[in-house]
């Protein structure tokens, strides 16, 4: 008897739940696009998506909903390659979008020429977060290799920002030594000697530094550090921007095969273009990304002035940089092999 009651109650509950779910699917009829992005852009796209939806409704009368997926940049690229139906990708570095175009026919090889500024609507750089009062007195890259300084940076094999970090340090060392690659490698070896833990992604590294209290300095996106500094307490951390760093260009692209199949090309194209608009740039700046539009840039004084070098200046392009530094047997592997042989 009781079993019957339990069974009938649970079936009713399940059925109601199912109907609720089904009805909610049919409620959302207008255009929906999926933006597959990387970790630190969550807050940026939350605000930008709402702004774009307003803009699109005013312009066309169509309701647009933008779904978001976030994760480590390379992992997200992998998901798109494996069939995650992204209408647009907004990833941490061009190399990850290159990987999509290489391994699939989802988007053409020349994708980076289709939007202004190498398809990077906003930029960032690599900066430091230190404990309050900067007890280890860290002001520049050269301070990171000092003995007794503990440095937190994620694993360049899996994390987009970690590659930027690595190349920024390498570029700094090249500048200091007048282009001596051996000296740069020595500098990187010294730096990674000071890294106690390699997290797999940017957010993980931030959590290690902020929540778990490990390390004297966190190397990360400037935007992530400015956000972390605001959100997690100005009384606990100081932001240090080195006098010289790399110009990081997170890139965006349409995923042609998907937008053509789903008939969303117009709205997806407009979505990415809107990133370059006054409002899009303003939102990016508000979320600590350096805007391209000078009219917006002049309004935001929170971005410290520093000397920025580009990836092209020292490393050619991402394909080359990846092959030399991050592929199996590259300089990162060599550095780690050497470090594992010598006691710390």
């Amino acid at each position, binding site marked *: 008897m009781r*079993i019957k009651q339990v069974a009938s109650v649970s079936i009713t509950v*399940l059925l109601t739940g199912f109907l609720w*779910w089904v009805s909610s699917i049919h409620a959302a009829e207008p255009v929906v696009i*999926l933006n597959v992005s990387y970790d630190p852009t969550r807050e940026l796209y939350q605000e930008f998506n709402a702004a774009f939806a307003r803009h699109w409704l005013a312009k066309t009368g169509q309701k647009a909903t933008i*779904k*978001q*997926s976030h994760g480590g940049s390379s992992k997200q690229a992998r998901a798109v390659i*494996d069939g995650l139906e992204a209408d647009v990708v907004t990833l941490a570095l061009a190399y990850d979008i290159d990987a999509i175009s290489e391994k*699939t026919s989802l988007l053409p090889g020349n994708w980076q020429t289709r939007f202004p500024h190498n398809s990077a609507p906003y930029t960032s750089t690599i900066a430091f977060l230190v404990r309050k009062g900067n007890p280890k007195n860290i002001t520049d890259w050269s301070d990171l290799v000092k003995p007794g300084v503990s440095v937190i940076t994620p694993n360049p094999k899996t994390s987009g920002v970690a590659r930027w970090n690595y190349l920024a340090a390498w570029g700094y060392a090249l500048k200091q030594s007048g282009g001596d690659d051996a000296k740069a490698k020595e500098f990187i070896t010294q730096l990674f000697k000071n890294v106690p833990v390699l997290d797999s992604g940017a957010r993980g590294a931030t959590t290690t530094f902020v929540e778990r209290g490990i390390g004297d300095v966190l190397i990360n996106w400037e935007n992530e550090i400015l956000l972390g500094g605001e*959100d997690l307490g100005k009384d606990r951390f100081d932001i240090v921007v080195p006098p010289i760093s790399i110009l990081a260009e997170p890139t965006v692209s349409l995923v042609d095969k998907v937008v053509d199949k789903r008939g969303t090309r117009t709205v997806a194209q407009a979505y990415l273009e809107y990133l370059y608009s006054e409002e899009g740039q303003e939102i990016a700046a508000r979320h600590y990304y350096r805007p391209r539009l000078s009219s917006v840039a002049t309004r935001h004084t929170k971005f410290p002035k520093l000397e920025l070098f580009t990836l092209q200046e020292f490393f050619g392009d991402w394909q080359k940089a990846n092959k030399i530094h991050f592929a199996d047997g590259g300089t990162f592997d060599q550095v780690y092999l050497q470090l594992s042989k010598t006691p710390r």
Partner: protein
Amino acid sequence: MNSVTIIADKDVQWKESLTTESTLVRRLLISAAFLYLTLFLFIPLVAIFTEALKHGLSGYIDSFLNEDALAAIRLTLLVAAVAVPLNAVFGVAAAWAIAKFEFVGKQALITLIDMPLAVSPVISGLIYVLLFGAQGWLGPWLAEHDIKIIFALPGILLATIFVTVPFVARELIPLMQSQGREEEEAAITLGASGWQMFVRVTLPNIKWSLLYGVILCNARAMGEFGAVSVVSGHIRGLTNTMPLHVEILYNEYNAVSAFAVASLLTLLAIVTLSAKTLIERKTASATRLKSQR
């Protein structure tokens, strides 16, 4: 005479000291167990609820009243609603076959049922990416016919079903084996049809174990993270289950909401455990009644 009794007394004392520990040791052991459980289970449990209620009850409730959270709850319920009945039916069928019949490959079947427990959940998810992913074996064919499996509901269902296969079957196999087939045979010789025998004899015999298996299966189906994470694609409001949603909220520095959703999952676990204890008591009294008869 005298000496004999003394020896016997000593003997008893000696035996007692072998089988029972001194009060001190017993107390130490008990308090160690309690300390351990408090440290590793109770305090984290309390922490979840205090974190979740940090901004008061309204902050707690707000965590559930946004679209993404509701969608995650909905998806989790739907996944459990499909995976649990399916595995319950399969579990009964498999346990029936294994317990009541002899056939070639029986051992292989038992091993297969156990496999999801032995395989890491991440691998369970990756299997489906390899099979149904765009670069996988069936990927091109699926794309041609516009069928989405991974990064959509079917993939999440498949992964969940895979991970939860063993729970019902594992619960039923030893019970049905120990019960043997005499009662069923008696029912058949008395003229019962197959279905009548199942409903009147088999089902009442296994009902508590079945329910227990279903509860465990349900807890895992709702709580599964690893396998689902691999095939989900993490699309907010679409393919995020509750455990995935908790991770996202936490990564967004939204600790209150993360712990609020986590507390919902925890509540579910507590309800499940209470139901389990209740059922265990029922089973115990049922078997006692039976043996008295």
